[in-house]
């Protein structure tokens, strides 16, 4: 077992046998734009969400640079407000929500199920184009005068402001449908297209996570759609639902908004949990600890998360009973989340831990998510939240979960399935360095925000009292480091497409069905119809040679 066989020199790997895969089976614009292949659609999503992420990141850098000085270094207050709004809206609606299901989910879900495609390929393409039109509307809104309501669109400000709220609202409406259709598609796919022998409890956890996400998408997103429509109607026709001058109730808007947006944070994070579950197992070469508990905790989170939206409104003047229930249930969500984190750590414990770049990103996730989740518990405590609500403490909390955890899990998954998708490997050394830079940059950016937040620095401030300046300085420096790390990552990933080494057939030694197809997969995924005879994550069946055979 411990014989140290020298690694194959990948440079000399011979070019392909001429096997057709999904990338080179056809070419031309229409072969992509009109494709029904889930992998190509996944790739197009990947390009789209990456562009959105880079735009959002640019806005973030502007925000941080502006906050270098207490009076605001770059913009007038009104312009700053537009920039932080754009940052939040791009990141939430165009990146974090669609990123993992749209790109990696599309790519991997049918592979993991042993299916030829998703159940409804046309709907899948439609989802993608809805995403595109949402992105166009959002960009249009910038041209039409921008918007300055924050990503939360709180009424009545969103009713009164003279910016392009209707346009962006329509964009979000379209994005919502994109999300709903993806969810529907995945639900049907999981129910109908599992390979023979792939029972529910043999499904990889990424599939479980996407399944739980899809339920949330289908049930919660319509509420968001209705809410933004109501805001648009209120602006256009003064129907008097949210505007207090017409007898409307602004707090009702908050209820509607968070009824969607709390489940939405789990729409964002569950796929990330799925990726991490997958990766800790593969890269520790060890079955997942507590598989069923993780699967059930995803469903538990999906259900409970419908009942906790009020924890975003503890200062809004809710009744005591509402406060009681929402705080109680919020603490309840923390339990399945904690179970997951412990199970991942237990999986790594006594594993055969490969310290490659996907695993480094995963470890970074585990550390950062621990902080993100634990600080959520601090916020769940009623009287403490009253002090911390709408301060930088909350900003730091949700960046620890959204940027530090979800985006990092997305990067981890990207590095994990990159060789599968493209048949090439990026430069591992650069990847490890970039991961280190991102980890350091991220923590430098957001740790100080916890401190200034608990000391009372309110969020969405274009200017601030000077005593908070040192923390803002640290945070801005961190953001620049983070930006450099991400730039490096983009560089080596793109470079690998042109000059990357050939990847191995089974680069990391995975045993789920996605590693049983040729690399990159052919158009309809499997040369032979797959069937499953072993339990999930059973590494005793791993053929180690495939991890050393270059992809064809």
């Amino acid at each position: 077992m411990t014989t140290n066989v020298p690694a194959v020199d990948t440079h000399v790997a011979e070019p392909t046998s001429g096997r057709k895969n999904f990338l080179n089976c056809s070419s031309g614009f229409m072969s992509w734009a009109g494709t029904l292949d889930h992998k190509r659609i996944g790739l197009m999503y990947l390009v789209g969400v990456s562009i959105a992420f880079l735009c959002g990141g640019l806005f973030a850098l502007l925000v941080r640079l502006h906050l270098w000085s207490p009076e605001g270094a770059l913009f007038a207050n009104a312009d700053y407000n537009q920039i932080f709004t754009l940052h939040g809206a791009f990141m939430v609606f165009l990146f974090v929500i669609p990123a993992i299901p749209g790109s990696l989910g599309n790519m991997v879900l049918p592979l993991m199920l042993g299916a030829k495609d998703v159940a409804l390929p046309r709907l899948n393409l439609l989802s993608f184009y809805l995403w595109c039109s949402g992105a166009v509307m959002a960009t249009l809104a910038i041209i039409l005068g921008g918007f300055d309501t924050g990503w939360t669109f709180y009424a009545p400000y969103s009713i009164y402001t003279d910016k392009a709220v209707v346009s962006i609202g329509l964009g979000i409406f379209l994005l919502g449908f994109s999300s709903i259709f993806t969810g529907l598609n995945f639900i049907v796919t999981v129910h109908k297209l599992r390979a023979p022998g792939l029972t529910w409890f043999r499904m990889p956890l990424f599939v479980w996570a996407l399944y739980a996400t899809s339920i949330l998408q289908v049930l919660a997103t319509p509420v968001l759609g209705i809410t933004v429509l109501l805001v648009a109607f209120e602006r256009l026709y003064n129907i008097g639902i949210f505007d207090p001058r017409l007898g409307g109730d602004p707090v009702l808007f908050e209820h509607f908004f968070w009824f969607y947006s709390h489940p939405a944070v789990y729409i964002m994070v569950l796929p990330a949990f799925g990726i991490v579950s997958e990766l800790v197992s593969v890269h520790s070469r060890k079955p997942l600890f507590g598989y069923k508990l993780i699967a059930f905790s995803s469903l538990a989170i999906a259900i409970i998360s419908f009942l906790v939206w009020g924890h975003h409104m503890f200062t809004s003047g809710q009744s005591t009973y509402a406060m009681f229930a929402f705080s109680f249930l919020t603490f309840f969500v923390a339990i399945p989340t904690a179970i997951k984190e412990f199970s991942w750590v237990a999986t790594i414990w006594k594993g055969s831990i490969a310290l490659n770049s996907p695993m480094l990103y995963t470890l970074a996730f585990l550390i950062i998510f621990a902080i993100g989740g634990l600080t959520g518990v601090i916020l769940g405590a009623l009287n403490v939240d009253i002090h911390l609500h709408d301060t930088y403490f909350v900003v730091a909390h949700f960046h620890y979960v959204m940027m530090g955890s979800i985006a990092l899990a997305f990067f981890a998954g990207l590095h994990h399935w990159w060789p599968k998708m493209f048949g090439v490997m990026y430069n591992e050394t650069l990847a490890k360095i970039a991961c280190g830079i991102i980890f350091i940059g991220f923590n430098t950016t957001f740790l100080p925000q916890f401190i200034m937040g608990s000391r009372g620095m309110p969020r969405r401030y274009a200017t601030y009292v000077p005593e908070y300046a040192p923390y803002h300085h640290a945070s801005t420096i961190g953001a620049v480091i983070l930006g450099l790390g991400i730039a490096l990552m983009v560089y080596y990933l793109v470079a690998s497409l042109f000059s990357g080494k050939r990847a191995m057939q089974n680069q990391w030694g995975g045993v789920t069905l996605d590693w049983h197809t040729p690399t990159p997969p052919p158009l309809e995924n499997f040369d032979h119809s797959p069937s499953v005879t072993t339990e999930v994550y059973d590494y005793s069946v791993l053929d180690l040679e495939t991890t050393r055979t270059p992809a064809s």
Partner: protein
Amino acid sequence: MFVNLFQDPVNAAQGVAESVPQNPHAPAQTIDAWGQLPKLASTFGDVDGLFYFTYAVCIFFFVLIFAALLYSVIKWHRKTYDQPAASNVTHNTPLEVVWTVIPLIIVMVMFAWGFKGSLDMTNVPHGARQYKATAKQWNWTFSYPNDPVQSYGELWLEVGKPASFLLESTDVLHAFYMPSMRVKRDVVPGRYQKVWFQPIEKGEYHLFCAEYCGDDHSKMYAKVHVVDAVEYAKRPWDQWDDNNPAKGGESRYKALCSSCHSLDGTPLTGPSWKGLFVKDASGAIVGGQRDVFVGGVKETITVDDAYIIESIKNPEAKKAAGHEKNAMTAFPNLPDREIHGIIEFMKTLAGK
């Protein structure tokens, strides 16, 4: 745009007070011994207790997780490509029960403690002084119990006396947030909200707007003085000096108008006040020339007191050219002596 539709009967007063600019050159807060929270200045110490308790629990679990990961990575990282896992355990029911039940117990403690603390915050004690805070874009106005004089952008409280605030917004959402007192409450247009606390330390404190409310959200600041009974009895908020109305006018300007009007010619949301009054050849102060739109028709007028008063009480009547698309908050209830003070202040700008 934000025409003042929510005219407020209580506001229809009266007097005035000297106040400080909204742009905060406020004293820095003192930080408590643990370095995380501003030093507690109210009786809501439960917040601190629970905060540090949850903080300690978080640090404990974080260290546990981090140590386990670090240890694993050092001990079991893969040295050869075919190294199998050191163990293939997939379950350990006692362990799983432990790590479900222990966190459950801990969070239930946090829940109960937090809930109790929040009850204290909702139950206003008998005999609390009734203040009122009115939020509008982007300033705070405070009314004192049984006192016609209001203060702007600055608030005085007596140490040791519970203070209860009726919160009211005339435009969008705001939030009344005093970090040192551990209180925060959204100010919702169309509803009255309440917040109370009992200051226990003399000093000066921040009052922030914590709910995003548009352009100058971050400047919606008030300085809060907690003073002793002797000082409080002097009604420090009533500082109007009839012998020097321009001084009072300047403080009104800083509290209410400076977010939209500059003094040096820079156009903000509204026109600069430079040039409203000018000096003629003899050095006498006279009204300047202004282009305005009256019902959409442009005309040139000479500024006088009546024009200023109309601009303050009914800004839509004559719209200053170059800013005709922007709306000014109306101040129909601003007392006459304050308007007079503002005009006197404007006149001091002539020739500058």
